[in-house]
């Protein structure tokens, strides 16, 4: 598959080395994350076929593509929760051989698909579990400001929260970590439309000035949050560039939403 390259927004926020993309030296800050030749197998299936991409700092990058192309697998591989081959560098240093908790200690943070809050622990305990960084105490006040519901429900079991509240808890506990790169997987999945609006507003506030790699199926949500986009298809980077460029290109957008149709409309 050819890698298609969009016009980088704001100077190569996202780049695909395979396409030779990127701003010239000195024009852009060094990437937070560099991924080279990332392969993942799950059982017999070869899910990721050598992903190459970079993530620029202080930008929200959407990782898009139809179901099953390997978006969640990419995040899990970056975290070390799935075995992978290839090279992953965080701020220029390889984290490929590190265990999951070491990668997180180096600066990755993760908001999983389906929230995965600890349902038997209270809201306060879920947050206390994440209070392990020197900055966490100060950040807790910010989290409570962002999500006052969490403070009001601190003694409630997390499993009894609504989907939206669980999402806020999942995001809140991640924000206690002074992370270099937030990996957020489908934050609006399974939520009611009105709750999606709330969650998106909270995410916009919470991720301002943060570097985020966002997996999102809902294109409107991705548009509201992301400045840049990477589109995966068949386990490879099919396109990368500015989110606005992607949305402005109707064919590209249709291609992304249309389960990888070729020009002739035939499904791949």
């Amino acid at each position: 598959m050819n890698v298609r390259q969009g016009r980088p927004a704001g100077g190569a926020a996202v780049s695909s080395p395979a396409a030779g993309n990127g701003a010239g030296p000195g024009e852009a800050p060094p990437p937070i994350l560099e991924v080279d030749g990332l392969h993942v197998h799950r059982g017999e299936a070869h899910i990721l076929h050598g992903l190459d991409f970079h993530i620029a700092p202080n930008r929200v990058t959407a990782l898009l593509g139809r179901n099953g192309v390997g978006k969640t697998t990419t995040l899990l591989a970056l975290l070390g929760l799935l075995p992978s081959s290839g090279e992953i560098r965080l701020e220029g240093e390889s984290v490929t051989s590190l265990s999951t908790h070491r990668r997180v200690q180096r600066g990755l943070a993760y908001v999983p698909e389906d929230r995965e809050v600890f349902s038997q622990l209270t809201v306060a305990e879920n947050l206390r579990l994440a209070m392990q960084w020197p900055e966490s105490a100060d950040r807790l006040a910010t989290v409570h400001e962002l999500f006052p519901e969490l403070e009001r429900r601190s003694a409630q079991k997390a499993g009894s929260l609504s989907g939206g509240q669980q999402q806020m808890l999942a995001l809140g506990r991640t924000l206690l970590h002074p992370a270099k790169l937030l990996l957020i997987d489908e934050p609006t999945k399974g939520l009611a439309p009105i709750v999606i609006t709330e969650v998106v507003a909270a995410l916009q506030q919470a991720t301002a000035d943060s570097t985020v790699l966002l997996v999102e199926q809902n294109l409107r949500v991705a548009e509201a949050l992301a400045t840049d986009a990477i589109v995966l298809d068949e386990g490879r980077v099919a396109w990368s560039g500015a989110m606005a460029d992607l949305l402005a290109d109707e064919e590209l957008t249709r291609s992304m939403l249309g389960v990888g149709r070729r020009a002739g409309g035939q499904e791949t």
Partner: protein
Amino acid sequence: MTFQTFALLLVTGLGLSGVYFLIASGLSLIFGLMDVLNLAHGLFFTAGSYATWWVMSSLEVVGPLGLRFAIAVVAGGGLGLAMGYVVERVFVRRFYGDHVTQILITLGLSLAGVALVGGWFTYDPRTFPLPEAFGNVVMVAGARIPVTRLLTLGLSLVLLVALLAFLRRTRHGLVIRAGVENRSMVQAMGIDVQKSFTLVFAIGGMLAAIGGVLGAVFFAGVTPEFGLNILIFAFIVVVIGGLGSVEGTALASVLVGLTQQFVNYLAGAGIGDLTVVALLAGTLLIRPQGLLGEAVR
């Protein structure tokens, strides 16, 4: 059945429940957190019981038997703690996720342990002197209750409260509770869950060994197969209570201990054990996740 008999069976059953709880709680946490079916857990129990036998029989230099018993509890618990640590670090750590190898290794350790203890101390049952007070009975509402039953029950309750306090009030406990629910997510929060694995193995070993100390007193003697025999009931307790749930383990221990005592008395020796197996089957059919366990999603 007279009230006196009922009270005696009740306290004896609860004392037995205490022994079951001590061996089963560590087993449950180990399985809940690490997915390890530790067939060597009975070895910790046997170690505690033989430590008691040795301290009570041979450590005459210490003096009074009451003090010796206190030393037996500490020594047995310490021995179990050390054994749990070593078993996790040396034997189990390399094989997380490899269930077949785990079973083979822990089963091998268990059988080797029985052979080692049998070879060293012979397979003859060993008895030992107990403090004079342990032979007394206490009158409860007209029923004569042996002190050993109350001791087993009381010490088990103290350890239950201590374990719950550890799990609910400390950061290590918080990590363990979260890990039982979702180990990957704990790692994804930057927490080294491996440290908790070792800690849980060591605590589980300590509790099982103290269970062995109390079991030796409760059953008035020890044999090399002691731990292996009781491990079967511990597994039943763990499954009925719910994997990884300490509260469920406590509840199931009471259910199993009382059922055995009352049914054995009312229906004849051995029927109680069969009834417990029926309870296990019923639980698996009606509520496979156990009384207080979480359903697997």
